[in-house]
């Protein structure tokens, strides 16, 4: 009985990878290209390499957050704690490196692990305690915000005296090519995430839980355990984003981060991941995050007032969700 369900489930998943999901990605990618062409014509300064580098750099933090939360959203959940969670990991990185004087590498790993801890606790509340994801992660969002203030004593932690910390994000490890590491880290995280989601058992179960949690459970998969793992993975992404942000600002700012979760979720939605779960892709999320930063950068470079930039991005999100609904009706 249980193997039957597992078997009938697989072909359905394949369809999501190759069928309508791909269409959404192509649509998102086409929009990105159209935007780039539009802004290149509208402003002479848009297509300069240094501006493109700026766009990529400003995508990194929100982008990495969005990648992690894509996993959670595909399971049909949501993670509101990623914004302030990122702040908490940047503060923890500061504690490890500046207060405790640990070596950079240990501090970075510590920062990422603190992110994993936050994800783990969210996952625990969602899967074991059965608290709805919206509430559980909302609570975690507040816990992380408060803890950041408590741990840092409500004042920023500066890395100015730590040799080399700033270059984690802004340095360049490839000799001869001056692409900031943060951008490389972002694409590396896309790669890791993509492998996890489409090539491993974690990814298969992520889609399975999002498509039909009950059927997944009945086919003998320990849904609780896998949800816990998925939220923890998302937490690792939060940790990486926190380290990158701290490095770029050369400081851990305890009052930052609130609201970043919504930008990240917007990027996920624009990238074609369905908020009702079961469908989505990391390449889509990457494109979604790029669309958001190309839009803000392009509108800014054209000197469109900021208020209108926000309105435009709001409309883009509406459109993205509308296309997602059309797609569902057709299938």
């Amino acid at each position, binding site marked *: 009985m249980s193997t039957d369900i597992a078997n009938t489930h697989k072909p359905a998943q394949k369809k999501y990878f190759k069928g309508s999901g791909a269409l959404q990605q192509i649509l998102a990618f086409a929009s990105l290209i159209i935007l780039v062409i539009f802004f290149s014509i509208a*402003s002479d*300064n*848009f297509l*300069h390499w*240094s*501006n493109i580098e*700026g766009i990529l*750099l*400003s995508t990194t*933090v929100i982008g990495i957050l969005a990648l992690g939360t894509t996993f959670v959203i595909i399971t049909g959940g949501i993670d509101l704690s990623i914004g302030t969670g990122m702040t908490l990991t940047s503060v*923890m990185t500061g*504690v490890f490196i500046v*207060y405790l004087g640990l070596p950079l590498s240990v501090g970075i790993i510590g920062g990422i692990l603190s992110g994993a*801890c936050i994800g*783990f*606790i969210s996952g*625990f509340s969602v899967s*074991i305690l059965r608290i709805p994801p919206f509430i559980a992660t909302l609570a975690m969002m507040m816990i992380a*915000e408060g*803890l950041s*203030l*408590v*741990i*840092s*004593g*409500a*004042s*920023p932690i*500066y890395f*100015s005296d730590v040799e080399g910390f700033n270059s984690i994000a*802004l340095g360049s490890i490839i000799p001869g090519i001056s692409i*900031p590491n943060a951008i490389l880290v972002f694409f590396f995280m896309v790669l890791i995430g993509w492998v996890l989601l489409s090539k491993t058992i974690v990814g298969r179960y992520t889609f399975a839980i999002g498509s039909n949690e009950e059927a997944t459970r009945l086919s003998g998969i320990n849904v609780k355990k896998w949800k816990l793992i998925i939220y923890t993975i998302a937490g690792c992404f939060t940790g990486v984003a926190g380290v990158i*942000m701290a490095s*770029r*600002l*050369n*400081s851990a*700012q*305890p*009052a*930052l981060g*609130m609201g970043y979760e919504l930008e990240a979720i917007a990027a996920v939605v624009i990238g074609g991941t369905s908020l009702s779960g079961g469908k989505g892709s990391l390449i889509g999320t990457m494109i979604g995050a790029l669309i958001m930063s190309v839009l*803000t*950068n392009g509108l*800014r*470079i*054209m*000197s469109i007032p*900021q208020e209108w930039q926000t309105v435009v991005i709001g409309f883009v999100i509406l459109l993205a969700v509308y296309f997602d609904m059309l797609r569902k009706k057709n299938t």
Partner: protein
Amino acid sequence: MKKRIMLAILIVFSSLLFVLAACGNEAEKESDDTGSTGTETSENEKAAEENNEDSDKPYIAIISKGFQHQFWQAVQRGAEKAAEEFNVKITFEGPENESQVDKQMEMLRAVLDKQPDAIGFAALDSQASSPLLEEADEKGIPIIAFDSGVDSDIPLTTASTDNYAAASLAADKMAELIGEKGKIALVVHDQVSVTGAQRRDGFVETMEEKYPDIEIVDIQYGGGDHLESTNLAKTMMQANPDLAGIYGSNEGSAIGVVNAVRELSKEEQVTVIGFDSGKQQIDAISDGVMAGAITQNPEGIGYETVKAAVSAINGEEIPENIDTGFYWYDQTNLEDEEIQAAVYE
């Protein structure tokens, strides 16, 4: 099985909390000046003693706009200094961030119930606070406004920086540094608050009136968020490759501009002027990335607030406005005593 997992997770969670608590204590200890015997019991005893001692002193409740910014911590220091000098008891509190108008209202309401002898109040929204201010007035509790004024007749005085005049000085400095001609841009923290608007208008209007050859090409709002301000200052420089200067209207905005200039290696080309203080701005000025900045005198604001409250309790005459002053600081005067008291790390 289930129980064992639960137990294991509980242990992990509580040990995590323990570690976090330990870190928090360490941070506290570091910032504690006396720092010798900081055990919990002795601190509690100390607090209890203070309470006994303080019961006869006049009590002034101070509600600020926040507490996590170093600016507010400096205001608190000034207030505490005055409290010691005038032998009064104060409490200092504020909401977590400067958009939490409702939370501030709750704090004000709670304070009213404690029957203080005077209240120091920095309104996040003067309209929203007016009913509570009236209630205080009826109870005969004098109110001293600080930082930004309250749009009401009830506060006896306002201790604040003249933000418009301060921004106007920033404009004069910018004009002088770029040779009174060229393109400039502004990164402002927000368009709705009084400080945001005054620090923008003081700068923009001075430029327009006095320096016809300077063109303001862009004004953007970054919410005082370091990362957001960095990204938008970068875009400004991309859109206007010949930009001569950028002015950042508060700590987060100014640091954002500094980050952007550093990331694009335009230190030689773009003149950066900031507002407020903080370690990163002071470092940027020492490094020459930032030409200079305006600082308010936050300790002065706190000090003058308590001083005015004491005068009010004693029934003395107080002026309608107390200008707490501002300073221009750069590499040349960073070490001056007067600047050192006004800048905060």
